[in-house]
């Protein structure tokens, strides 16, 4: 071996070991730091969307935006009905009732709400990036049409290297975490509150892994509405958003998941009237929340069941051009 070729080989070995060392340390450190995340929610299609641990935090914003969960990306792209909104959307529409309703009719849907209060700017970005072409949008408009991005959404859209690196590590960590907790459950304390998300339909699995089921009664007296100028702004942003989406307004359904913090129904009603969209506000009594802001599991089942039942005429109108695909011979 000549001095020159020995030098190049030295550099190649150095680089290979740097990659290996970096990879092992990065995944190892990620695993040690987040070993206490819940592992009970992993499934064939379910990923760890959030864990309140040292280095994990939010995963779903980046994962769905960059298509790190390929099944989720495909299902968003192919969904005929997409639900948009904040964590109230996730709490309200992550129910068996919704799955059963669409499952029975063979309609593909995806619940595409996000925590951290994210609204139309991030939804718009993710719809565009994933190439989604829904026939119906169901929007929890309280008011949803707003400026601004949450920190995880901002980071995802900025796409800096450090963020993408952490995102990649979170993706790898889940594989290691799942295998470790399956083969040696005694090392996983399952103590960090976590949220799992279905890559199949976007529903959250969080009652249990993240919060305990509770029944906090509604307090309508505490509900706030939004200022008139905010509402005006929401109408403008709504117009812009809907023009960009390009759907027939009859196929855009505004609703408001009931809660004690906001007069979601009132806000959504005003926006639906202004934007000339469809709207659904099922009269459901005796609902309760987990924390004042999000429907609890029992109430979500009842409320979302009513919403999707009321959605049937819109489905009939907007999905009529969809015919079952003929299998090629």
């Amino acid at each position, binding site marked *: 071996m000549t*001095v*020159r070729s*020995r*030098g*190049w080989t*030295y*550099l190649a*070995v*150095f*680089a*290979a*070991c*740097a*990659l*290996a*060392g*970096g*990879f092992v*340390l*990065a995944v190892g*450190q990620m695993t040690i730091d987040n070993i206490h995340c819940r592992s009970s929610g992993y499934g064939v299609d379910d990923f760890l969307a959030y864990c309140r641990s040292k*280095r994990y935090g939010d995963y779903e914003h980046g994962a769905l935006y960059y298509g790190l969960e390929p099944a989720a990306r495909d299902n968003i792209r192919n969904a005929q009905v997409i639900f948009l909104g904040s964590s109230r959307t996730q709490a309200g529409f992550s129910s068996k009732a919704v799955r059963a309703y669409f499952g029975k009719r063979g309609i593909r849907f995806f619940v595409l709400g996000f925590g951290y209060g994210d609204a139309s700017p991030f939804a718009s970005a993710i719809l565009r990036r994933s190439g989604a072409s829904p026939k119906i949008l169901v929007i929890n408009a309280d008011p949803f049409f707003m400026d601004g991005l949450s920190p995880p959404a901002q980071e995802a859209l900025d796409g800096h*290297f*450090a963020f993408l*690196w*952490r995102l990649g590590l979170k993706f790898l960590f889940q594989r290691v975490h799942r295998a470790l907790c399956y083969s040696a459950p005694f090392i996983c304390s399952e103590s960090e509150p976590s949220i799992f998300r279905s890559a199949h339909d976007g529903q959250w699995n969080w009652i249990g892994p993240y919060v305990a089921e509770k029944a906090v009664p509604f307090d309508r007296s505490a509900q706030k509405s939004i200022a008139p100028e905010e509402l005006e702004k929401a109408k403008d942003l709504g117009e812009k958003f809907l023009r960009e989406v390009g759907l027939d307004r009859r196929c855009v359904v505004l609703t408001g998941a009931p809660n004690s913090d906001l007069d979601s129904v009132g806000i959504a009603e005003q926006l639906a009237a202004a934007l000339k969209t469809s709207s659904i506000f099922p009269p459901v009594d005796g609902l309760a929340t987990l924390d004042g802001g999000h429907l609890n599991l029992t109430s979500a089942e009842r409320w979302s069941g009513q919403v999707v039942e009321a959605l049937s005429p819109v489905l009939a109108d907007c999905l009529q051009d969809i015919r079952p695909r003929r299998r090629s011979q």
Partner: protein
Amino acid sequence: MRGMLFNSAPFLFAFLPVVLLVFFLLGSCDYRTLAIGWLAVASLAFYGWDDPFRLLPIIGFSIVFNFVIGWMILRRPSRRLLAIGICADLLLLGYFKYAGFLAEMITAATGIVVPNPDVALPIGISFFTFTQIAFLVDASRGEAREYEPLHYMLFVTFFPHLIAGPIYHHKEIMPQFERREIYRLDISSLSVGLTWFAIGLAKKVLLADPVAQYGTPIFAAAAAGNQIGFVDGWIAVLSFTLQLYFDFSGYSDMAIGLALMIGVRLPLNFNSPYKATSLIDFWRRWHMTLSRFLRDYLYIPLGGNRKGPRRRHVNLMVTMLLGGLWHGAAWNFVIWGCIHGLGLVLNHGWRKVAEARQLAIPYPLAWAITFVFVMLAWVPFRAANLQSTLIIWKSVAGMNGLLPAQSVVAGQLAGAASWIAGLLALALFAPNTQQLMSYSGETFDRLKEPIRWPGWKWAVAAGLLFGASVVLIIAERPTEFLYFRF
């Protein structure tokens, strides 16, 4: 303001590859002047990274001024010109570094309120000022010649050493740029340089930064006036002692490695200082280029040991006092310098007595006395002020009890003890970087030896260390080197 950091992703993955690539491209086309110009301009970009409009005029003025004075001295040697040059350099350094301190002292001493100019210290000013003072002195002695402005600019700004040394002489660096081989990519040099750099990076990122988490909150608690217990006090002192060594020697290794990548040898800066068995020995191993500067340009011109023992002691005290002040304009550094000056005087005194009476302190005891002395002297070097220095000193003397009601590092004792024990073992028993790379660390001349093949084990080890360090750099914000503040 902290300049571009060697331990940051932009430096590692953008600045360094581009600088090397363009340098070797120009060199391979035999555009040697352009290659030197490129290196100088890149070094200025490195320096002015955070605040170019403020930093570049300062260093630019300093370079032009010293080049002109040096040129005039070379044409006609003159003590007056030399004095003007040194005074102007010290004035510039004094204005940025000591004006606030001086104003506070005058106010405290006379009661007359002198407004504090409150100027931010330009990064690296102590280092580039000393480098240029050394050049002027060497030029007046006929030991350095430089008539090329571009070469002079590179001599001052060469990015591996610019911000925190090693402080070098013109005669040991610039002749290397006259060698043709420097401008051709030498894969052996690049490999050794990368290995040396990786070891330095690992010292900083994998050792110095993690151990700092134990000492920093304790020094902060002392600065806030809280009483510190015996255990916390020792954790603070030990962790800072180790942090400073791995941080600064790591930086020096990175600088040496970077220069080696283009075949340039920088002088060594550390030689396992905590293995020293006397304070005299310690100063031959710690920040060796600063010790050499202080010896050659301060201690010896003051008379050194040539004018009798009493004068030698005075010279030692003055040298160490000014050495302390060079680190920062604060009473803490004056005290640190005084302690070391006094320690050196005692050490020389003891050595004389021991030689006359044929006495010898057993090796472990000599080491322990030296190490504890150096460690306790680091307290004023690190503490925020005199009050917190006293708090820490009292705590390590056991004057605040074993553990206070609330330990600052409660629940982290095992972690702190493990880190300190591990790093102490490395500092005391492991070979240093130059020994690992098969060089003797005893003299500067050894770096003139041909570059040695580090062996495959180092390709693996340094690669792993580099990869692990980079992962931590990406995951966490890179931290500043401790010596950047000087």
